[in-house]
């Protein structure tokens, strides 16, 4: 790659402007049903005049600017504009309540807020209630440092012929276009100021405050230097080689570090074209229209897309369905070879080409994956089945590991992708494990500390090693495996740590297990599990095996089903360290149910509640009986309650 090394985003912007001008599209946004383009010249000029406009309103070097909006070009323009003026940018998530917005603006000491639309602007103009229900005056009266709230979508704010409607005549409000006009005026008396400012940006300057939630206390602002962002982007690009011809759809929140790298960063570094969806609800549709080359989804998105494909297969014509089932094994075979970095011989290659032409290509097109070159998943573990499935279709899905504070620590190279790991270390990173198994990281590319919280920063370091807070290990081939957050770990007798979630997630990867609760604590010698079998899949399995059953309870306690679940647990046990293996389990006689308050409405386990409710089952798991009579209270959908008598079997796994 022949792009020179710069130490700030602004310098890349200028370089691209000189190189491409109005010859190449930098970004697109879908508006009024049409993809509207902005060239590098447009990008540069918007940034230039917005930056000068902010300065004319009193923005100074070292000031803070908060941006509160959905993914739109204006977000990126405002970020670069503030950065070029020497200000620090912080992003606020659009669904934040006024109380939260207040915290971010106050904590970051932002002088300006760049807000998306009426909805966001209202947060500053309308009196609000905090979590305790206490009435507050509008935010604009509670934030003395705040000079202006600048909005870019005037709908509902500016009325007929551009005059502000009602309360929106407030002097604290100003439109994005007005600021740009101010910038144009400002330039007349100060020609060359913007260009000087670009040169003044330095790698040592703090560019971004990225708020990290942490597990305790209020969010903290991790400070990132210009240089760190640019180095990280270059290192990332050295692995994945984004190109000026790649398309990218920006839908991850830019207040999140990943979008700063893949969106803002990759676009500036390589000229990769950024496309902004019309509305958050149209993201999938817009992805299909654009056909991105680079795509980042969380594991849940990958899962839902795989389910979508399977639903489409069920609905399709018998011939196509047949082709799919004939060629999918070919996909699996070739996909497995590829991720292992092995050579695919001509025979399989030829077969795969046919499979691709007849089935995979059309399938991928339907969900917008037809042109994906590099696909990422991160955040939590992805099911190996989903992973293999997309590899089979020819989507080169890979995982990465990093955080706001650490940057990008590991990533899979194309020829060595393993579903259970996060990949080998990036150049410039060192990694070791603490005695407790915590991942420690050392690098130039770490954050510059938390804003105004030196103690919190110190707590995150052991000497010059950064404490990731993640529990994991390094495999012999150098791949990092991240298992869980340290705080989520539990201890067995003797202080040996284990991760209930790690095992639970992997148990859920089995089609026969819908939910699982892993039990174990300081007064226990081993780990046990309460399993919620998947009635649909196990039921189908039982029918195929000609095992008669009546109810969920009956099915779950069939010896054959217990054998099936035992097998699934053994598979998971193989990936677990010796002392954390599941020794005994019970198939719960009912499903974990949100109506019984065992799950949250988002289907997360309410661990403490279940452990208390099924205390008698847990006692039995650590007792010596192999069967237990239970009387279970149940809540019906209409709110009535009843009880159920049954017996459950306690099973051992060798």
């Amino acid at each position, binding site marked *: 790659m022949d792009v020179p090394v710069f130490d700030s985003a602004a310098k890349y912007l200028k370089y691209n402007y000189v190189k491409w001008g109005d010859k190449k599209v930098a970004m697109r946004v879908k508006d*009024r*049903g049409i993809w509207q383009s902005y060239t590098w010249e447009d990008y540069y000029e918007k940034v230039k005049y917005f930056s000068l406009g902010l300065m004319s309103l009193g923005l100074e070097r070292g000031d803070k600017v908060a941006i509160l909006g959905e993914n739109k070009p204006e977000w990126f323009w405002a970020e670069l504009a503030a950065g070029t003026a020497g200000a620090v940018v912080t992003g606020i998530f659009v669904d934040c309540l006024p109380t939260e917005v207040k915290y971010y603006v106050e904590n970051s000491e932002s002088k300006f807020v760049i807000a998306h639309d009426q909805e966001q602007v209202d947060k500053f103009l309308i009196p609000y209630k905090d979590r305790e229900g206490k009435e507050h005056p509008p935010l604009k009266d509670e934030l003395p440092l705040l000079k202006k709230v600048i909005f870019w979508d005037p709908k509902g704010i500016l009325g007929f012929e551009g005059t502000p*409607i009602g309360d929106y005549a407030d002097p604290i409000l100003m439109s994005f276009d007005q600021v740009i006009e101010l910038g144009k005026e400002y330039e007349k008396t100060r020609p060359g100021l913007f260009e000087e400012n670009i040169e003044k940006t330095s790698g040592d300057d703090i560019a971004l405050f990225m708020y990290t939630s942490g597990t305790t206390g209020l969010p903290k602002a991790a400070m990132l230097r210009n240089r760190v962002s640019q180095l990280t982007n270059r290192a990332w690009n050295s692995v994945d080689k984004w190109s000026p011809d790649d398309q990218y759809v920006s839908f991850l929140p830019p207040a999140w570090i990943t979008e700063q790298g893949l969106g803002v960063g990759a676009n500036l570094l390589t000229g990769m074209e950024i496309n902004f969806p*019309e509305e958050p609800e*149209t993201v999938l549709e817009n992805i299909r229209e654009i056909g991105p080359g680079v795509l980042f989804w969380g594991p849940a998105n990958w899962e839902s897309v795989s389910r979508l494909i399977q639903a489409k297969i069920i609905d399709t014509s018998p011939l196509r369905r047949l082709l799919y089932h004939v060629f999918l094994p070919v996909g699996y075979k070739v996909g497995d070879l590829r991720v292992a970095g092995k050579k695919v011989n001509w025979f399989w290659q030829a077969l795969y080409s046919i499979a691709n032409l007849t089935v995979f290509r059309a399938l991928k097109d339907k969900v917008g994956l037809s042109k994906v070159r590099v696909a990422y998943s991160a955040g939590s573990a992805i099911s190996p089945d989903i992973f293999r499935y997309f590899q089979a279709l020819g989507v080169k899905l890979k995982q990465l590991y990093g955080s706001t504070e650490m940057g990008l620590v590991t990533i899979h190279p194309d020829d060595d992708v393993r579903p259970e790991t996060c990949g080998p270390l990036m150049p410039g990173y060192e990694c070791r494990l603490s005695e407790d198994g915590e991942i420690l990281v050392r690098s130039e590319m770490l954050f510059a500390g938390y804003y105004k919280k030196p103690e919190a920063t110190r707590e995150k370091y052991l000497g010059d090693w950064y404490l990731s807070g993640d529990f994991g290990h390094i495999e012999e081939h150098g791949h990092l495996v991240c298992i869980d957050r340290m705080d989520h770990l539990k201890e067995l007798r003797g202080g040996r740590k284990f991760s209930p979630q790690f095992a639970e997630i992997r148990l859920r990867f089995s089609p026969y297990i819908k939910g699982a609760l892993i039990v174990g604590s300081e007064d226990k010698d081993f780990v046990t599990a309460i399993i919620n079998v998947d009635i649909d899949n196990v039921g189908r399995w039982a029918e195929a095996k000609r095992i008669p059953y009546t109810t969920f309870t009956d099915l779950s306690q069939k010896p054959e089903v217990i054998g099936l679940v035992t097998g699934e647990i053994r598979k998971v046990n193989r990936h677990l360290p010796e002392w954390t293996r599941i020794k005994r389990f019970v198939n719960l006689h009912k499903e974990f149910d949100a109506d019984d308050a065992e799950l949250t409405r988002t289907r997360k386990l309410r661990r403490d509640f279940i452990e208390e409710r099924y205390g008698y089952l847990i006692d039995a798991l650590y007792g010596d009986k192999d069967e237990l009579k239970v009387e279970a209270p149940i809540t019906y959908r209409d709110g009535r309650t009843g009880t159920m008598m049954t017996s459950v079997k306690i099973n051992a796994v060798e």
Partner: protein
Amino acid sequence: MAQDEVKLKAENIGLYFGQLRALDGVDIEVRGTEILAVIGPNGAGKSCLLNCINGFYRPQQGDIYFDGKRITRLAPHKIAELGISRTFQNIELYTGLTVLDNLMAARHIHMKQGALAGAIYFGPAYREEIEHRKVVEDIIDFLEMEPIRKKVVGLLPYGMRKRVELGRALALEPKLLLLDEPMAGMNIDEKEDMARFIIDTIELRRIPIVLIEHDMEVVMDIADRVVVLDFGHKIAEGSPDEIKGNPAVIKAYLGE
């Protein structure tokens, strides 16, 4: 445009179905930039009044003037061309067409190219379609219908269809909008959205609105003036606050 300029005036309207007096000597006025709510118990004659205004019914008595022009005996499509558009209590859309096509179809009164030019789809007809599409896209943006732009109307949830119907009414670029129970059967979120769109219609597009609505909370929130009908008679008229305290209204709703 003067704030209090009278846009629509209906004088002494009487509508009879045999011996049944659906409307009996009703007068209303709609001013330039106001939301006028028409309320009343079931069978009070609210929808009949709207139907008289847009020409579905011909009142036996009285006259209706729009922008100073008498429209009492005009056919509904003529009245639509003059700039009165409406939505219906029971949604009336092309359920087999997409949202976009429904809105484009509403543009027909503004289309100048003939069927032949449209069939050849060249030059003027092509340019005209782009112009109309722009108007329609503005409405899609205005009503936040981007995610459903290409969805078939019949597959949309009820609340969304109501929104599409408002969009279709707006696509006519009306000078007066008649909304017949735009929020009936909606949940709270949908009602709030619809209320905001109605207010925005006045504030951003300066289109006066006659609104029939049963949800009193909404009416009192968004209406500038309220007219109350009962058994075909106008029993009260005034600001929402005046109406709330009016004994005749309370009697009509709650009985003696």
